[in-house]
């Protein structure tokens, strides 16, 4: 192949951090107008690769990298993000690089403002040139129009929906006249489904203008939808490059993980058919966006029950209500005795543990070590890990450390040490810390919400395996809420589908896709209720 045909080539890229090899001989070729996906689990080396492309200081302060980056066939020596920008490489960041108090125009034109000279700028410095806001607005309008975004350019970013912020970021990049390559770093992670599909449309629009796109993600279905070619990385090595026509989701997933994703191996669990561990009667939860309006559910002792349903129908509300985090009413019975509502401490005392769906905001103390994260709820509520001296008590650091080490082994938490702040852990490991904390409370009922949200394929399996193991070995009753039906069907004994804040019905994992489809859409209630599954 001729080099001139490619707008960007990365040849034989390698990188070592302090003797640890993180990238080895990576080659990527990008033609104008191509959408090229870079796939890989967390830690596969995607971000290091992008850091090299953008000349981030973290690369150059640790001895540079091996290999060569070519732009339009010419060797480019990019030493800083600004140089990357000048070379025509743009980035749509995962966490938005937008200033909330600025208008859309100001954000699009950030540090690329159009100015006109005046007396002082001629005398002193061109930094004193006046901003030409009228021209800036024109440019911003044009960029927004390219993306078919119908929004006024003078609106402030603060208060815009997340999906729009992403588009403003993209508008900023395409406003750069020399843009040749645009990198999307996991752009759909924070978007709703419809926003994500809008984004994919926008990616096609941009590529049709001859701009090449590097699409970093681990959502395989999106890759199959938009990408022309895919490069798969695993453990810093290039596993393979595929054309869209030649591959399938299964193959890509296999390449990424390096092992076949099976249905979770299920042994037998002992479900006590005669006893209901948890009963919800006419239970309502006032959780914004996920309201529950009077539902009934009976959970048997020792089973894994799944709670599924479409977003906004209320499935998330169930666990949050029982855990006492959102105002709720109705009746909750544990082992036949009522649980006082709206009282998180009481829920914990009744041996209910909750792993929140909002890992980073509710689930973890991000700047605190793994060990304290695991111990803190038990310390606060059960007086665990405390040494008592009369009226004073002191935390028992040694016991906390030992317990954290034990949990680390049991759940295979990958970290540099149990004192590592949880902010720096990968999503899967953060989730394991959340589970470890819940287990520290020695619960009889474990609520887990969206346990695999935002974590990669390999870690997903480990988390699910952990849940199954807990259920089988400790006989723990597990209520698992998830948006991913496939996941529920792979681990649960029964799956309750929530629709419009009420229980639509309960299905077995082996029921047909059609039944699931009907129930999620709310067309099943009559059949399910008469079927006697809902008791």
């Amino acid at each position, binding site marked *: 192949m001729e080099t001139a045909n490619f707008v960007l080539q990365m040849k034989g890229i390698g990188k070592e951090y302090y003797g640890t090899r993180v990238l080895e001989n990576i080659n990527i070729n990008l033609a104008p107008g191509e959408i090229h996906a870079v796939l890989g689990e967390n830690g596969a080396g995607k971000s290091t690769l992008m850091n090299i492309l953008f000349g981030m200081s973290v690369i150059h302060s640790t001895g540079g990298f091996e290999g060569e980056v070519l732009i339009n066939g010419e060797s480019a020596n990019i030493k800083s993000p600004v140089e990357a920008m000048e070379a025509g490489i743009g980035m749509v960041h995962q966490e938005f690089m937008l200033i909330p108090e600025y208008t859309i125009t100001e954000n699009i034109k950030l540090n690329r403002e159009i100015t006109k000279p005046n007396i002082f700028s001629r005398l002193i410095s*061109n930094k004193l040139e006046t901003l030409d806001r009228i021209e800036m607005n024109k440019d911003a309008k044009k960029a927004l129009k390219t993306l078919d975004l*119908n929004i006024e350019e*003078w609106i402030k970013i603060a208060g815009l929906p997340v999906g729009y912020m992403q588009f403003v970021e993209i508008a900023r990049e395409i406003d750069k006249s020399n843009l040749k390559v645009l990198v999307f770093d996991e752009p759909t992670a924070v978007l709703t489904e419809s926003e994500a599909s809008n984004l994919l449309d926008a990616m096609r629009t941009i590529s049709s203008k001859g701009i090449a796109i590097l699409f970093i993600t681990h959502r395989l279905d999106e890759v199959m939808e938009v990408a022309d070619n895919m490069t798969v990385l695993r453990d810093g090595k290039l596993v393979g490059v595929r054309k869209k026509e030649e591959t399938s989701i299964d193959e890509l997933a296999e390449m990424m993980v390096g092992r076949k994703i099976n249905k979770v191996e299920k042994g037998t669990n002992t479900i006590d058919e005669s006893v209901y561990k948890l009963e919800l009667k006419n239970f309502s939860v006032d959780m914004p966006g996920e309201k529950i309006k009077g539902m009934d559910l009976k959970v048997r002792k020792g089973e894994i029950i799944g709670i599924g349903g479409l977003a906004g129908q209320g499935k998330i509300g169930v666990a949050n209500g029982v855990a006492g985090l959102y105002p709720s009413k109705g009746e909750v019975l544990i082992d036949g005795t009522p649980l006082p509502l709206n009282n998180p401490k009481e829920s914990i005392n009744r041996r209910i543990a909750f792993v929140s769906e909002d890992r980073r905001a509710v689930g973890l103390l991000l700047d605190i070590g793994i060990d304290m994260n695991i111990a803190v709820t038990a310390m606060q509520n059960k007086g665990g890990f405390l040494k008592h001296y009369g009226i004073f008590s002191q935390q028992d650091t040694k016991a906390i450390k030992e317990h954290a080490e034990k949990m680390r082994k049991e759940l295979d938490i990958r970290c540099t040490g149990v004192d590592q702040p949880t902010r720096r852990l990968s999503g899967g490991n953060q989730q394991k810390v959340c589970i470890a904390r819940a287990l520290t409370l020695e619960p009889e009922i474990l609520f887990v919400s969206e346990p695999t949200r935002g974590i990669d394929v390999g870690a997903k399996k480990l988390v699910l395996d952990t849940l199954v193991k807990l259920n089988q070995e400790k006989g723990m009753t597990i209520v698992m809420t998830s948006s991913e039906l496939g996941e529920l069907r792979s681990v649960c004994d029964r799956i309750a589908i929530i629709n419009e804040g009420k229980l639509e019905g309960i299905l077995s994992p082996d029921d047909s896709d059609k039944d699931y489809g009907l129930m999620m859409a709310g067309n099943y209630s009559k059949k399910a209720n008469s079927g006697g599954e809902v008791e």
Partner: protein
Amino acid sequence: MENNVTIDRGILDRKTKIKRFFVKNMVTIMFIILSYIGFHYSGLSVPFFMSELITRFARNGFLVLALIIPVMAGMGLNFAIVLGAMAGQMGIIMVVHWGITGVPGVLLCVLLSTPLAIIFGFLTGKLLNKTKGQEMITSLILGFFANGIYQFIFLILVGSVIPMVNEEMILSSGVGLRVTIALNDTIRYALDDVWRFSFIHTVLIATIIFLIIYAVKLYKMKKGETADAPTDKSKTYFNLGVVVALLAVTLGVMFSESRINDLQVPMITFAIIGVLCLFTYFLSKTKLGQDLRTVGQDRHIAKVSGINSDGIRVLAIVLSTLLAAYGQIIYLQNLGTLSTYGSHEQVGMFAIAALLIGGASVTKATIGQAVLGTILFHTLFIVSPLAGRNLFGDAQLGEYFRAFVAYGVIGLSLAMHAWKKYLQSKDELGM
């Protein structure tokens, strides 16, 4: 793709709008009320009060304006303007020692203090770059620390290490400067006395100028030639209304027998303050100003976009320190006495209190807020001792009241800003 966003413009009902206006401006409104009560009980006549206010505004306005640029750059309230004030005083001390008088004396002060202020500002900026996020407390403590060095230089080194012979300025022991240095024969009123002009005519001319500016702005908006958001229109109408009201009051006073008509304004000093306002306004419209604001909003994003955020922050502090030095020279030429070890001490506190009263916060300060704040703060300063005496029958109590006002307002307005933020966040949540 169907994308439509509904932004709440004009759909808020009148009641919420009024409530928001009061919450947004509660600090200022509170101090307007306090000032009015104080004025009422002080028993001062309007002309006397106005003449005091004019003097104090000319004296302090510049210093308050010096605080705006660091706020733009997200560095909070720059207590380290004390260092700028010291630079100004060092210039004055040299000029007094050499006995240069009048306007040349003031110009020489400016010339001498400029390099000093730039050095002080540069060092302060470097320090604040090392203590990001704690700029305010760092600059406050830095002010105290610099005061120690200042005292060491002028109390110990002058006359012993630094040769200086001047009977009027040096203590009788031959080492160290006297506690007070009179400026009567050198630079007192050097600027103020250049040109004094009728107060009421000055206000008249100023209001007419503003009237024209706003009218042109509205005309442009109607034709859609500006880059401002359409929502800014109501603000312009509001400003226009204020100017018209002011014009009406001015004309009313002019045709009355009030003694306000006899008041005079030190035009050069006011012109300098006006130029600084224009400079700050101009700066905010430039690329540099946008960079300052970007750094102030988010250092990280600014850096990623290629803005030299550390450099911008140092520049902001250098400008602020430099302006503070000039501000202190203006202040002292009007006051007429240099309290060698005291004049600079309160500068930071008082200027910041004034700015806060005007409705500014740690993250946002405008020229209008600085001007309004200076007026309100000094109104309280003028009326509170008298009001205190009249209310409680004790002159000592009035003095106490004065100190109370200065420090109390900083604490009070910071607390009220915190409360305001809390109210606003509650409002946004729709609670």
